[in-house]
């Protein structure tokens, strides 16, 4: 039986994977470290162990999964970096989104609804790629702030905007999927 590696629950996600605390992240290095860690804590390695070992393995593997999914996605990674800075301007207590930003996204959502109603997959696809482009630009900006110029009062706002864009992209993607299915049946 493999020696049991006890995960230090107090370490931050980056330290857990031995990665620098940065927004720009080496995805391959993250993948490698993730697999390496699961290779020592996964419950499959302790299926024959006692209940305590099984419980610990399950908790540790869940912790590794949580850290991995938080870092893998740029949106949750940005939010996590803010939380490491003890920035409490996050989530619901964060700043209000600018009105023009919100209006822009609402327009997009309405246009998407219209496109879906009209079975216009092309228009929906165009909207989706626009939103994704906006999100990517926002990520680049956040990368500069987190990894270079330093974060400021505006950073939490940008993270919120990125979160908003990601959610919108997800919804548009789902609408596109629904359109695909409808067109076939």
């Amino acid at each position, binding site marked *: 039986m493999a020696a049991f590696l006890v995960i230090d629950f107090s370490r931050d996600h980056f330290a857990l994977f031995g990665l620098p605390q940065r927004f720009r992240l080496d995805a391959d290095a993250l993948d490698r470290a993730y697999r390496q860690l699961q290779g020592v804590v996964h*419950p499959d390695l302790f299926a*024959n162990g006692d209940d305590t070992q099984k419980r610990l393995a399950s908790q540790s593997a*869940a912790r590794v999964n949580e850290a991995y999914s938080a870092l893998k996605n740029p949106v949750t990674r940005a939010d996590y970096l803010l939380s490491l800075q003890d920035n409490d301007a996050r989530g619901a207590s964060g700043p209000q989104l600018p009105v023009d930003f919100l209006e822009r996204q609402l327009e997009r959502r309405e246009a998407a609804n219209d496109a879906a109603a009209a079975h216009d997959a092309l228009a929906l696809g165009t909207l989706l790629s626009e939103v994704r482009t906006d999100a990517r630009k926002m990520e680049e900006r956040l990368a500069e702030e987190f990894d270079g110029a330093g974060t400021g009062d505006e950073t939490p706002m940008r993270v919120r905007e990125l979160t908003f864009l990601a959610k919108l992209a997800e919804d548009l993607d789902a609408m596109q999927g629904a359109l695909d299915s409808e067109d076939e049946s």
Partner: protein
Amino acid sequence: MALFQISEPDEAPAPHTRRRAVGIDLGTTNSLVATVRHGLAVVLPDEEGRPLVPSIVRYAEKGVETGYAAMAHQSDDAQNTIVSAKRLMGRGLTDLADARRFPYRFVDAPGMVKITTRSGVKTPVEISAEILRALRTRAEESLAGAIDGAVVTVPAYFDEAQRQATKDAARLAGLNVLRLLNEPTAAAIAYGLDNASEGVYAIYDLGGGTFDISILRLSKGVFEVLATNGDSALGGDDFDHRVLCWMIEAAKLPPLAPPDVRSLLVASREAKENLSEHETALILATLADGQTVKVTLTKAIFTDITRNLVGKTMQPVKRALRDAQLQPGDVQGVVLVGGATRMPQIRRAVAEFFGQPPLTNLNPDEVVALGAAVQANKLAGNQERNDDWLLLDVIPLSLGLETMGGLVERIVPRNATIPVARAQEFTTFKDGQTAMAIHVVQGERDQVADCRSLARFELRGIPPMTAGAARIRVAFQVDADGLLDVAAREETTGVESSITVKPSYGLTDGEIAQMLQDSFAHAEDDMQARSLVEAQVEADRIVDATQTALATDGVLLTDDERATIEQSLAQLARMRGGSDHLALRGAVEALNRATEDFASRRMDRSVARALAGKRVDAFQ
């Protein structure tokens, strides 16, 4: 728990001896058991060399029969011979839009449907346990000793209730469950280790009653499931049923009694299987009344009448790829699993979608059991060359909580890698509120009503505070079997009040212990009392079913016919109060006979509706 122990502690094998570990594929149509021998996964056949055990259980006069022995009676004893029990696992009667398709006497029960047999009322868990017990016996004879542990496979798209039911069945069969393993993942292990594959693979698994699609990334010995999707009520059975519907129309058949339905379904399946090799299939069957059915099914007709079933499998394929953020072209290879993938129209559809011919070099019937055996061997701690691999699987459906207004707050998203732990904080909405109701649901829809309800419980003993001051942390934990535990705790005051629930579809340890005891202690039972209770349950069930049928489909009867049925009902009600179980059984049989025609007419009507395009199997 001592009851579940396979071997006494002092008989435990020394660390260097090999443990007897098996992989079990508990299928809708067929089941298999496999093990690793001399480093190679092999299916364990019966004495006659047959690898498959038909997943059929018959409650015969003399006891329980399984496999081929039970199969021989699926037509002449249809009501006591249960096929496709897997379709009923963790399902209530309301979940089964196609309940009428089964010739069984269903009993609606909270959580899971039950079936009245001549040996009493049986749950799908108990029925499945009989199949697992038969496989366990086969393995123990073959391996000459008690089984130390088993990996039992489940469809990847099985939800919490279905998984829990499967695990319960395995425990009931006296198996030490090392892991529940998703079927497509098991196939990927068998395939991937065999072929030393790297890259993204799609596993298209169409079994007798379930459909799964899993997208995996294979890289340096890690099998990482990226996304999974499917339909836990779609499989080869449905293709048989389409053939049956077509046959009823083509041969202009009268309303059919359950035994005829069963034998025509068997004939339909044979025709389906023939068409994988030939252009036409002759269907020849004799009905109970001596009438002969003779029709020819061509490949073209078969393809035509099953087109929308094939289409129905492609939706989950697209959803899985979308969730994995991949295009069909990113997929390196497509592995076909499940006997139903032998159908040429399936192979064509898959090849067309992915732009490449699917991989079929492993036996689609055996690959799941072989993969499960490999994992069981590893989990049991047997050392092999080449066992340095790791499996990372996911949860197929999102888990969440009911919030205000009947909406779902998602806590664990679908395709999250397991094991996973997620928590969310909630608060009280009234001043002085001391309890909070927690409703756990599973599914992708936003409304609670559209999701599956898994469990309800209440957190009590919250200290009175102003509204919004309490911090109630609800923690979800999904283990490596994909099974969920939920706990809730109030955090502000340091007063800890927590509860852990098992989803309501699962059986408690106590219930399983009771069932095990019951199955061992038959001899000590007061058979008389037991028979009476069973007869009463049966009587209540048939009265209930008849009244419901009269209320909904009474128009199908003439006044005289209705009067006869009502007379039988009244007679049964009189017997129900007595203590003579034989008389009560007689009255039940009389009512059964009186309603036979009525039942056929209702069945006929539902088949007619199905043919008219109103699908009876439209539930997801």
